[in-house]
């Protein structure tokens, strides 16, 4: 076991763990946000740089700091490593720069976008970004392409995280879409116009951190915050059949996989990932098709969860002041960080 300290919180993790995974073991506000990394997809991560952290001490043997911020999703921990995320103002400054770059070409069409309300980029820019852009030029625009009757591709919104490409590689046989062209002209496409109709292709929608890939059967039906998420299951011979239904009254508007607090698709009891098939996702839109388990826990990405954006500022102060120390079992209790207005 290796001992690492992230934002002054020590944690012991097995060898080969990345900084991001170690931070997730601690949990709370110190977890770096991730746009391209998805723990259930192999070789994902390392593209977007939103998860950058400052490594103050490389290891116990070699205590020199790393010269520049590192991507925590791709950097494995060393024994005695000291990492700073939200307790380092220059790291937050660097992340704000990354957000600004991600938003350069991202259209401001959240009022139109179906992902609004559960969009990781929305959360990221709200929590880490600056209120204004300094970019004067026109945003990049693509000709709309049709990739089938179930998935809507909105290339203007894409941040090229490669998650959907990895889903197609690792979940389906015979990937027929990918990133074509390079640099500014890079885009997700099937190259020769072709429908993506593999049984598990719908999972691309769930892993997309922005509104680039959305469900056509849910398109403009409602807004996420008006729907009522419930967990449900059915016997499916293709997939695990464990899904989240997004209802409005008696009507099932949308079916998605269950996602955890980090916005990633959850695991089943046997350890496999709960990807769902297209039949469950698109064709089972009656409540009678499903066995309802109960209301879904609203995750941190949701506008429905109250006081979501306040937690970064207001957690620890009072409890530590009143109790003199960190209470047991409270994971997100930190020392006063740079975001704390009382901390000078």
């Amino acid at each position: 076991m290796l001992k690492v300290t992230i934002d002054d919180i020590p944690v012991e993790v097995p060898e080969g763990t990345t900084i991001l995974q170690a931070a997730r073991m601690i949990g709370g506000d110190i977890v770096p946000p991730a746009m391209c990394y998805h723990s259930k997809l192999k070789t994902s991560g390392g593209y977007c740089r939103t998860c950058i952290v400052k490594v103050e001490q490389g290891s116990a043997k070699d205590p020199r700091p790393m010269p520049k911020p590192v991507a925590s999703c791709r950097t494995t921990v060393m024994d005695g490593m000291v990492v700073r995320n939200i307790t380092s103002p220059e790291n937050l400054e660097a992340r704000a720069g990354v957000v600004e770059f991600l938003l350069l070409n991202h259209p401001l069409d959240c009022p139109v976008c179906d992902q609004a309300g559960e969009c990781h980029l929305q959360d990221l820019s709200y929590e880490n970004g600056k209120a204004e852009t300094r970019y004067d030029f026109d945003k990049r625009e693509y000709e709309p392409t049709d990739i089938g009757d179930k998935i809507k591709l909105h290339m203007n919104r894409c941040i090229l995280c490669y998650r959907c490409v990895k889903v197609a590689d690792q979940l389906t046989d015979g990937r027929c879409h990918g990133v074509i062209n390079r640099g500014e002209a890079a885009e997700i496409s099937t190259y020769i116009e072709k429908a993506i109709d593999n049984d598990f292709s719908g999972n691309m929608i769930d892993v997309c951190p922005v509104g680039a890939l959305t469900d056509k059967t849910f398109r403009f039906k409602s807004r996420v915050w008006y729907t009522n998420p419930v967990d449900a299951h059915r016997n499916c011979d293709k997939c695990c059949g464990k899904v989240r239904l997004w209802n409005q009254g008696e009507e099932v508007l949308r079916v998605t996989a269950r996602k955890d607090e980090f916005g990633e698709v959850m695991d089943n009891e046997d350890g496999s990932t709960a990807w769902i098939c297209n039949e469950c996702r698109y064709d089972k839109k009656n409540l009678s098709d499903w066995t309802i388990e109960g209301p879904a826990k609203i995750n941190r990405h949701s506008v429905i969860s109250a006081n979501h954006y306040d937690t970064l500022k207001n957690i620890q102060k009072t409890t530590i002041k009143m109790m003199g120390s960190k209470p047991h079992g409270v994971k997100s209790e930190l020392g006063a960080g740079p975001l704390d207005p009382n901390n000078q």
Partner: protein
Amino acid sequence: MLTNRSKQVVKREMTWLERAYFPAILSGMAITFKHIFMRKATVKYPEQTREFAPVYRGQHVLKRDEAGAERCTACGLCAVSCPAEAITMTAAERQKGEESLYREEKYASKYEINMLRCIFCGLCEEACPKEAIFLTDRIVPSTFERDSFIYGKDKLVEPKDQPVDVSKRQTPAVLAFKNDKKHKHNRTFLDKVLPKAKHH
């Protein structure tokens, strides 16, 4: 006794002047007579109407842009901000050829405000990211049927030939932002079509 506010009631005999009756009548008449020359508290509505405050919040309007396309994109922020839950809407996708009718890819196919629920707080106007909904100085007329208080798009969207003036409800900062064509959402259908047409 607890509040020390109890008072002893005294039934006092009236004086001779008070019993004389006429002085009291005269002073009452004087007060009444004085009011004939004072400013009246009422106006003769509907011939005469009161002056409204510049920020009066009355019946809503759904604005069109300069090219006559509906600004509302059915984002639902007005409905989620509404404390009285008076607003409901259904979104639809804009079809090819409807670009001059609706500004965005998505529009409100149905938009209803229940005027019986509405408290005219103006939060919908504040929440609107598209400068689409405004409260105006028009009064919602009273009727006898409850159904007629549910205002649909036919009553809310401003007629193309009679634009509703909302300039009093827009601060200079809001207007400057609205006219800045650098923002894509401020470009109208004409702005998108005309530069291309000039090349040909």
